[in-house]
């Protein structure tokens, strides 16, 4: 099939294969385009790699710091070809990085990086979650309705990330103002003995936030995210000190209110 008879879909697939596939895939496209020393294809491939690197730097600032510029660039190129975008908003691309790193032989000596990436992805997506206002009067439902028909209303974009590694300490030591050599040394110590940490990620106002969640809080929030009633969520986290927890999550914007479940 030559350039004058191929249909548009075939032409477009050939160009995509030339850009996203191995260099050998570039041979087919020569049937359809005028190539000038191959520079055009190279320009588009370079554009793609630059876009991949920008996207990962934006979504994964701590992973970027830990890997260094050169390694991040190589990783971005590899991920681009292994898991190219499926949609036109590049802010949505890069979620596969965590799994990709966990399968990488080169990164096997740093097994915590993939969990750190999962945490940073949750922060990245929380940044553009829908806006929501708190509804404090709704907390009165706690004293008027049985917990079986109530559900906690959490901040949009809230996620729980569980890890066998100290990913919260690692992330905060590289992102918080005032990160010190002492803080980094403490993180190093936790990494050496594999201190497990879970994180809660949410947005307070415009600011994405994260902090460590203990096991009971992580269990409760996970249950709520899965659609549990308040009674079921509390049942999933019997060790949670609700009287101490409630004011904290109200103050921090993790909890925005309470709602009665449909049919209640």
């Amino acid at each position, binding site marked *: 099939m030559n350039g004058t008879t191929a249909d548009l879909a075939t032409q477009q697939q050939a160009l995509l294969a030339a850009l996203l596939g191995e260099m050998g895939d570039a041979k087919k496209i020569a049937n359809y385009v005028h190539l000038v020393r191959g520079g055009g294809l190279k320009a588009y491939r370079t554009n793609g790699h630059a876009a991949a690197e920008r996207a990962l730097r934006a979504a994964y600032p701590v992973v970027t710091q830990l890997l260094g510029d050169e390694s991040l660039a190589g990783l971005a190129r590899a991920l681009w070809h292994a898991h190219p975008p499926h949609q*036109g908003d590049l802010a949505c691309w890069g979620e596969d990085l965590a799994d990709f790193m966990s399968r990488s032989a080169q990164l096997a000596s740093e097994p915590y990086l993939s969990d750190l990436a999962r945490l940073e992805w949750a922060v990245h997506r929380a940044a553009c979650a829908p806006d929501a206002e708190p509804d404090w009067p709704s907390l009165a439902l706690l004293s008027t309705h049985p917990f079986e028909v109530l559900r906690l209303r959490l901040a949009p974009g809230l996620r729980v990330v569980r890890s066998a590694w100290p990913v919260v300490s690692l992330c905060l030591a590289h992102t918080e103002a005032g990160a010190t050599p002492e803080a980094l040394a403490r993180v190093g110590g936790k990494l050496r003995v594999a201190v497990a940490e879970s994180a809660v990620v949410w947005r307070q106002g415009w600011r994405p936030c994260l902090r460590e969640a203990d096991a009971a809080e992580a269990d409760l929030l996970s249950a709520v995210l899965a659609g549990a009633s308040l009674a079921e969520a509390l049942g999933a986290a019997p060790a949670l000190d609700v009287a101490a927890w409630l004011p904290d999550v109200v103050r921090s914007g993790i909890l925005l209110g309470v709602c009665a479940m449909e049919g209640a």
Partner: protein
Amino acid sequence: MSAPAYGEARPCVGLGWRQPHYQALMSSRPALDFLEVHSENFFGEGGAARAVLLQGRAHYPISLHGVGLSLGSALGVDPVHLRQLADLVKRVDPMLVSDHASFARGLWRDQVVHAADLLPLPFTDEALAVLCRNVQTVQEALQRPMAVENLSAYLQWQAQDWTEPEFLAELCRRTGCGLVLDVNNLYVNARNQQLAGEGSDPLAACLDWLAALPTQAVAEIHLAGHTVVVDDEGGSMVIDDHGSQVIEPVWQLYRAAVSRWGAVPTLIEWDTAVPALDVLLDEVRRARAVALDVLEAVT
């Protein structure tokens, strides 16, 4: 979409509003006729980015310029992308919605991918039909006309039934869409043809292109800088990186465009190595001065 400002005497010049200047521009609120943003950067349903855009909208008209609709895709337009754009348009009520005469969406290894680039289309009957169908889909979803931009293209398809200006004019005629005329893109293409030994005078080639554009539907003019890169083998190529000042031949093309189409809204684009806001505002002032000079000469 506002009616293109054909024949109006007052220049209308806006600026591409990028993240490094979100705060500075809101603090100083310089005299600009509009702000242009990349639609996809504001697709998130909430958060700081969209709040910033709505703050800008309170003070300036907004031109929503997309880079990801993939209007020329044989697979059609991504319905999710279109829904996000429609939601943004509803919130912002922009002066113009635009994207490119390009594709990025297609099948690769049996899955739908998006190459996140502005890949050229063959100027064929089939590509024109696909482009028209997709533009109509978008216009129906948005309930307003849109505008489509000519590309800087780093490769050319062998198959061709139309010249580029005829292809774009026919697109406008069939769909009622407008044209975003990027005169820097014209120059980049002509320079690359020159570097490939296929043309001797890029400015003359661009003027011929403009003369051959049989349409009045120019809705916005784009001005930007470009860069010449040299590859490992010593070959040169001009890259449309929007990372420097508009060069003199492109200003000449702008003069030619204004003399033909009048005070069309004009955008200064600067997307990489974004300089201080004052540098951008100097480019805006120059565009105004050039347009005013031309408009006064023809009236």
